[in-house]
């Protein structure tokens, strides 16, 4: 039973911390989109074709590098 005298304040402190963490998460916009993340995890990010295409674009870009594009 004496353990409760310590555990109760610990529990309250933990809840306080959890609420603070939750507020921070809500304020930083993590709960603004509740649909996207559920789907995005299912998509394949490591498609070799896409990686090849990205590398290709980057190479093309590297070749063009000397001419600095005009600033808008």
């Amino acid at each position, binding site marked *: *039973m004496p353990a*409760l*005298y310590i555990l*109760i304040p610990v*529990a*309250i402190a933990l*809840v306080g911390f*959890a*609420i603070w963490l*939750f*507020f921070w998460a*809500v*304020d930083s916009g993590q*709960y*603004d*989109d*509740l*649909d*996207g993340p*559920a*789907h*995005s995890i*299912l*998509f*394949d*990010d490591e*498609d070799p*074709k*896409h*990686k*090849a*295409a*990205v590398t290709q*674009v*980057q190479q093309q*870009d590297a070749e063009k590098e000397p001419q600095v*594009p005009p*600033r*808008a």
Partner: protein
Amino acid sequence: MTNPTPCYHCGLPAPSGGRFQIQVLGATREMCCPGCQAVAEAIISGGLEHYYTHRSESAANPQSLPQALPDELALYDRSDVQQPFVEHDGELSETCLLIEGISCAACGWLIEKHLRGIPGVSEAHLNLSNHRLQVRWADSQLPLSSLIKALRKIGYAAHPWQADAAAEQLQRENRRAMRELGVAGMLWMQVMMATMATWPEFNIDLSPELDKILRWVSLFLTTPIVFYCCGQFFRGALRDLRTRHLTMDVSVSLAIGGAYIAGIWSTISGQGELYFDAVGMFALFLLAGRYLERRARERTAAATAQLVNLLPASCLRLDAQGQSQRILLSELHVGDQVLVPPGALLPADGRIVQGQSSVDESLLTGEYLPLARNPGDAVTAGTLNVDGPLTVEVQALGDATRLSAIVRLLERAQNDKPRLAVLADQVAQWFLLIVLVVAALVGLVWWQLDPSRAFWIVLALLVATCPCALALATPTALTAATGSLHKLGMLLTRGHVLEGLNQIDTLVLDKTGTLTEGRLTLSAIHPLRELDADSCLALAAALENRSEHPIARAFGQAPEAAEQVDSHPGLGLQGRVGERLLRIGQADFVCVLSAHAVPAITGEHGQWLLLGDEHGPLAWFVLDDRLRDDAPQLIAMAKTKGWQIMLLSGDSSPMVAEVARQLGIDDARGGLTPDAKLTELKRLHSQGRRVLMLGDGVNDVPVLAAADISVAMGSATDLAKTSADAVLLSNRLSSLVQALHMAQRTRRVIIENLAWASLYNGLVLPFAAIGWITPIWAALGMSVSSLLVVLNALRLTRP
């Protein structure tokens, strides 16, 4: 006719003969138009072919997206234009773009992957709920206009987006609702642990000091639930009491407030039972119900109703030398001359200085055919220039335009919107009265028998009959039904629609764009010589496919291509198909080619176009605005329900009477101004009628805002969609018929839920009155009855 293959990209019918084909995922796929083909090619060359395996919906047709002119996009690279919506942070810039054309979750994947693959883009995140894209990129490597073009290439339109006051408030409210829900959930679990330990059922070896400590801990943890999370119930109750209504909020506040105050008393005195866990559970259930209901409505509404683009963002101003320069609309002044190319919206009210054209005013007035306009005629901002380029002298801008006058009418009309009675509040009123009377009686009786127990028994009675299930009955049913309706293509943006649909007794309809398709379609072909209708159509389509004119789309995709096509604004097109020199358009213009007399027109309705070659006229094409296929179904349903049906149109042509005759509507009026439509609606309201309004144009907007329930078509103007209570995304009137069935089912489920909740409360009342109810039974009863209500509501998610 054979069933056409759907376009692999957008799902629209593709022309036979495989004119637009592309290899996707190892098979040859048919496309409907060069636009879809180009988008699919861009997606595949980016290595993002897997979009087609991931997606669950067809993509949007690129032609259905708003046009973006290259020089208009270039305006976005000007730093003074960027200033309000782009933030600079060293090398990187950050902005928020609103994306149009998103149809499913795979679109988000495609956009993010595509942008991240572009050099210069450091971060791209799409919010699928509100279709906003947050992007960080190096401005020096990649101008904003190229970013927007890159999105356009894979089939999405992007607009710079700036949070307005309403959007910011919505976000604040959403986050606050989320926080309240989270706090209630987390604290309730703690409160439950502390409170339950003090209950006689679990209290085995609790020392008196610990009992006291646990009571104080529960009080400490419950206080934020009551004051932070339940604020909205108390505020609602106060508001309703001021207007002398007993609503659900009053009932809820009484239960929460009562249990909390009794808990304080019990904590201080150290005796009696604690009901803090009931407070927490009640708060959590209710907040969750309301949060879900709110999200079901807003998630989808946010995406459709953010852009109110009635006017173009930029226009072409002519300087003294007659050179045109693209400027922002805000830089335009009265007295300036602007050049309006065919296919563009007029940026301001003005007078035509030069040029001849026809102007499509259908969205503003309901006239379904473009009207001819000559130098000296007045033109209105927001209407569409159809035929030829016009030079217009600006006479009124911004707030002074006719368009703004309609918008102001809208604001006035919104205040006139009547409030429909909510079933749950009516039940809550009786419920509250009965519970209060019974509690008073029970209290009095126990006061005579055993004064020491009277208070606790009355309290147990109030908590046990706490209207948790009653309060959940409506929000859960509405949430489930809103979700199902969204799948059917109907989007509810206001909460009262489903319940209100059952109280409607009058249906007011607009004609152009609502009962009819709102665009010209080919209604008849009258061949005049040896060629049959199909070959004439093929020739006409070959010519028209080279034209950007809105009429051209009516002819569909041509199997062969025309050459040397010249456009003669206001007159027609000339071109060569094979050996044949052809003209299509105005009869006089076509007959000049062959020096034949103009053949007689044999009908009245619609727009008649002549096709002819060097040897004479070939065929008449009749273009008309066609009735929607499911319009008769809607009218038939309205009639079986015994509704009064009215057709109020801005169109002054005989088409109004014709449509009314075809559909069997007795009461049809044409040539009405927006003001006159609103007056008509007020007359119906003064007769005590409950009006359902269905419309699409800017001229319908005031009526949509003032009607008891208003529904806008998915193809409607942005302003109409934002002022309506629901949007038919599918553009099918049959969705509205389904919505009415869903409304009936929802009403039945709400009634069942309310009946069950009342029954439960009625059953528990006698047990509470004789003092058998302890906190554990109250908690059990509350959760089981709430669960049953939720499960019953879930039946609505099944079609």
